[in-house]
């Protein structure tokens, strides 16, 4: 499962920076969702787990990307859920879908077959090149924390045309060196990554955006994360305090436009009326 476990309230406490509302009457989670949705403009097929990516994708369909088609990692395609799905395999994503397919078909024909434009990944750890760890903290054989593992993440990273990462920032998660590489990003840099992808026949061109509770990062020519937009209310100091390396910062650095009234209405009234994911 590619859903970022840490995005779910029950999964444990938020990081300090993620706590509390942003200045203008919307939460950091709402800003994160809106920012991710806007990044989906022009995209077509998303491979998606539930939780924040699901809401972001559905918001995008209602706003910037009406043509977006969802492939759920559980095998539902073209879902029209009658309620907000509570898990990646919620029966509500199957009833009324255009197709429900086996995992073999999903991973072979949809994902590896090259039909997926955008895959979403969460992470326990990410480094500056977008390499991701969701397997263990500490040593693999004797882990300090045993995390869920790859699920479909490593094949999503390799076969989705591009990868979107949605996760909250913290010193624990934005690290100089990840403990285990579950999903490859830009490896040691853009040039070697491009060569490797070509030689090994990857369909994907790697991570294209990281949306956090504090800002939006893209990857520069060196393949390194660069802060390209800072969310309203966040500061560069907060950004730096929640990362294990000194991030590159766009100059000038724009502020992410606030969620519009319509975007907020859609989230609050239609996509997550109980606030399960966006409180």
């Amino acid at each position: 499962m590619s859903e970022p476990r840490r995005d779910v309230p029950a999964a444990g406490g938020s990081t300090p920076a993620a706590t509390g509302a942003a200045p203008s009457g919307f939460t950091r989670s709402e800003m994160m969702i809106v920012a991710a949705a806007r990044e989906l403009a022009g995209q077509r097929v998303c491979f998606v787990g539930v939780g924040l990516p699901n809401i972001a994708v559905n918001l995008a369909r209602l706003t910037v990307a009406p043509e977006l088609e969802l492939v759920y990692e559980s095998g539902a395609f073209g879902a029209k859920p009658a309620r907000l799905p509570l898990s990646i395999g919620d029966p509500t994503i199957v009833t009324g879908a255009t197709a429900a397919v086996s995992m073999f078909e999903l991973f072979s024909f949809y994902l590896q077959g090259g039909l997926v434009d955008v895959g979403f990944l969460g992470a326990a750890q990410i480094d500056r090149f977008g390499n991701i760890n969701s397997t263990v903290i500490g040593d693999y054989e004797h882990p300090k924390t045993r995390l869920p593992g790859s699920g479909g993440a490593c094949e999503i990273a390799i076969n989705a045309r591009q990868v979107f990462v949605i996760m909250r920032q913290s010193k624990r998660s934005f690290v100089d060196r990840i403990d285990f590489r579950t999903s490859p990003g830009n490896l040691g840099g853009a040039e070697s990554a491009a060569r490797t992808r070509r030689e090994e026949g990857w369909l994907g061109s790697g991570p294209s955006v990281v949306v956090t509770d504090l800002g939006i990062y893209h990857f520069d020519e060196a393949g390194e994360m660069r802060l390209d937009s800072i969310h309203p209310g966040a500061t560069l100091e907060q950004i730096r305090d929640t990362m294990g390396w000194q991030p590159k910062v766009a100059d000038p650095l724009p502020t992410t436009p606030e969620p519009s009234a319509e975007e907020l209405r859609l989230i609050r009234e239609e996509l997550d009326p109980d606030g399960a994911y966006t409180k």
Partner: protein
Amino acid sequence: MGKVASMRDAVAALVHDGDVVAIEGFTHLICFAAGHEIIRQRKRDLALARLTPDLIYDQMVAAGTARKLVFSWLGNPGVGGLHAIRRRVEDADPAPLELEEYSHFGMVGRYTAGASNLPFFPLRSYFETDLPKVNPLIRPVRSPFGDETVYAVPPLKPDVTVVHAQRADANGNTQMWGLLGCQKEAAFAAERVIVVVETLVDEAVIRADPNRTVIPGLIVDAVVVEPWGAHPSYVQGAYDRDNRFYRDWEAISRDAASTAAWLDEWVYGVGGRAEYMEKLGTERAAELRPSGSAPSGSVDYGLYE
């Protein structure tokens, strides 16, 4: 009655200590009833295979049935961790647990190779990840066409695969709908197959829609009729996922004692699934029923006489 058996008899006859056991189902149709019967019969040293061990394997591991997990994603989706498993992995508490770890597609490929009697299944995954470093059974294979190298996984052939489904006939011809996961592959790959169904139907129901058959009776050893056997997971069209229980498990399983107490009450303390459901209560069960029906509609195969 063909292959129809009680859960007790099916598990006693077909699951043996030391077996590789796959209770498959991706979020849907997870046969908790079979897992609980395996616990009650105190099977030992099992290697448990599943893409997502989910709560059922956390419970089976907590109960001491397993020596090993073969898996790709270890968690309580949307909620948290699998704490009985984590205790054994992180703290060897009360004993170590061997892990053999793949990705989802790697597991699907393993079952597919097992079902197809192939020595390996090739896939475009694992490039530049650390997984092949910690699992020597993920190996590169060179294509005989061009220079490309991809990865390969070996066949997985469970001794027993358990599949939950909406319906089967007494010969084990099994139909399911909704999310299909990799039950077909896991069943064909297995030495023995137990099918557990919500409803036993006449052969004529199966024969009316041959394309709906996912598992042929040919490979089925026992058919167990066990309504609600997938609770707290779900059965499309029959009942919903009991998300409350998935959330509750987070607290129950964080502590070894409360986990043991839960097993005492809900597994060892009941004779089988019927008693478990009685204990759960009709009110909770009623809440899990779909709010209405959503019929597939009928298609015509035509009579050709």
